[in-house]
């Protein structure tokens, strides 16, 4: 038993099970008011029925499409603008103040504006996710390029490399490392954009469902949806981690067989 307890994962799962059980018991004997915090079993039942009745799939699709489209477009836009600003001073002069401003404000406040511009369909959700992700990635790329190790630049130049070789051999790999460092945050941001957009005005999506649950004071559904979104984001974090480890294998590989 003690040996198992030394494992962090085991301890974490155990703590969560204990917490859920305590919650369940307190809720059943009436110490916690189920109107505000329904028992975990009740939350699970609501979530399962969403899947069994099949109502959830339409909403899942809407949120996932918006989040993933926002992530991909936001990444592409952020990388493109980051490179443009780092390589062309004129672009930097124009973009830097805009990006700094967008970075300083809570970008979700733009949601109502996107609804007015793009309607309540999916494009306004994608737009919000794009803005959230693109600003983050812009700074990762822009700072990544400015922070490139000058030693590598000199090395490639003395080997005879020109601008194109420098870009391919030094800038792109350095920037990839920076962008991947922000990838998990970007995944979270993409989901935030999609859900908040749906929360503001939509006809489907997890955010819409959440808004509906809240307006009908359905605490079980609200909590169920919150846990569901958490679960999905954690799964995507895991995927992001796999991508990161693969693309940065030069950093991770063989850390245990270093020779001296």
């Amino acid at each position, binding site marked *: 038993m003690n040996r198992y307890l030394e494992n962090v994962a085991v301890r974490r799962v155990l703590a969560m099970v204990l917490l859920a059980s305590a919650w369940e018991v307190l809720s059943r004997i009436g110490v916690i008011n189920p109107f505000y915090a329904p028992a975990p079993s009740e939350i699970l039942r609501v979530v399962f029925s969403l899947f069994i009745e099949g109502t959830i799939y339409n909403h899942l699709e809407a949120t996932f499409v918006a989040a993933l489209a926002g992530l991909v477009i936001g990444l592409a836009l952020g990388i493109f603008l980051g490179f443009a600003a780092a390589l062309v001073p004129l672009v930097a002069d124009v973009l830097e103040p805009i990006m700094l401003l967008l970075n300083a404000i809570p970008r979700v406040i733009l949601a109502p504006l996107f609804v007015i511009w793009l309607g309540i369909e999916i494009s306004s959700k994608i737009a919000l996710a794009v803005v959230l992700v693109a600003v983050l990635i812009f700074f990762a790329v822009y700072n990544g390029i400015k922070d490139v190790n000058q030693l590598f630049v000199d*090395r490639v130049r003395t080997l005879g490399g020109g601008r194109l070789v420098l870009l391919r051999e030094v800038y792109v790999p350095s920037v990839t490392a920076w962008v991947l460092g922000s990838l998990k945050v970007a995944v979270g941001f993409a989901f935030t954009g999609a859900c908040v957009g749906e929360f503001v005005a939509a006809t489907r999506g997890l955010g819409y469902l959440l808004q509906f649950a809240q307006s009908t004071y359905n605490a079980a559904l609200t909590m169920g949806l919150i846990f569901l979104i958490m679960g999905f984001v954690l799964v995507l974090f895991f995927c992001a981690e796999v991508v990161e480890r693969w693309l940065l294998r030069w950093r991770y590989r063989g850390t245990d067989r270093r020779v001296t």
Partner: protein
Amino acid sequence: MLRVRDLAVGYGAEPVIEGVNLEVASGKFVSLVGPSGSGKTSILRAVSGLLTPRSGGIELNGSRESLGFLFQDDALLPWRTARENVALGLRIRKLPTKAAESEADAWLARLGLGGFGERFPHELSGGQRKRVAIAQILALKPKLLLMDEPFASLDAIVRTRITQELLNWVEREHLSVLLVTHDLEEALTVSDTVYLLSQGPRARILASYNVAIPRPRDIFASRKHPNFAPLLERLWNDMSGAMNGAEFEAQR
């Protein structure tokens, strides 16, 4: 092979070096010693084209392609394997990737790193990384080697071994070398000529010394040659004189 005339280099208002003249004749091993911060690295960077001189001339026998620059840090790209790092220079010179990589493998083997081609730099020891960096340079068949304190970071045994191997290679291939070092003994054991740079700013060449020790050289045997000790003493005295003078000036 290389002639530096009246070179001035600087970063701010005041030049780091000024009026520097030196020469590396074809097939000669030349060292540049001087206090730290005097401008030795800056001279090499100017010769290699990484730094534009304030004034003066750099005459090279041939193009910059015939230069090989070994940095103080190994400067291997961390996201490239040892093989890819060595192949990089060859690919830049338009060799197809396949051919460049098999050539790279041959060079790694020559430097005692056969079978290490797949390793990333962080999977190699300091000495192994240095050998990869040497392979990367030698693979391009340079005529003139520029070396900036290349072995300063290595421990004594590895350092001695790599220095001797490189010395053998240089002697066999009749390469010209300009070596920057702060180690006076190392400079004397390997060089034909040693230049002493004064303390900066406005550092200049204080003196040059001819090292009359026959080749091929063994770095242990060279130290026992009768010409070695008197020369080292002279160089040592001149160098500490240059540094004391500067400290004295700084205090005034």
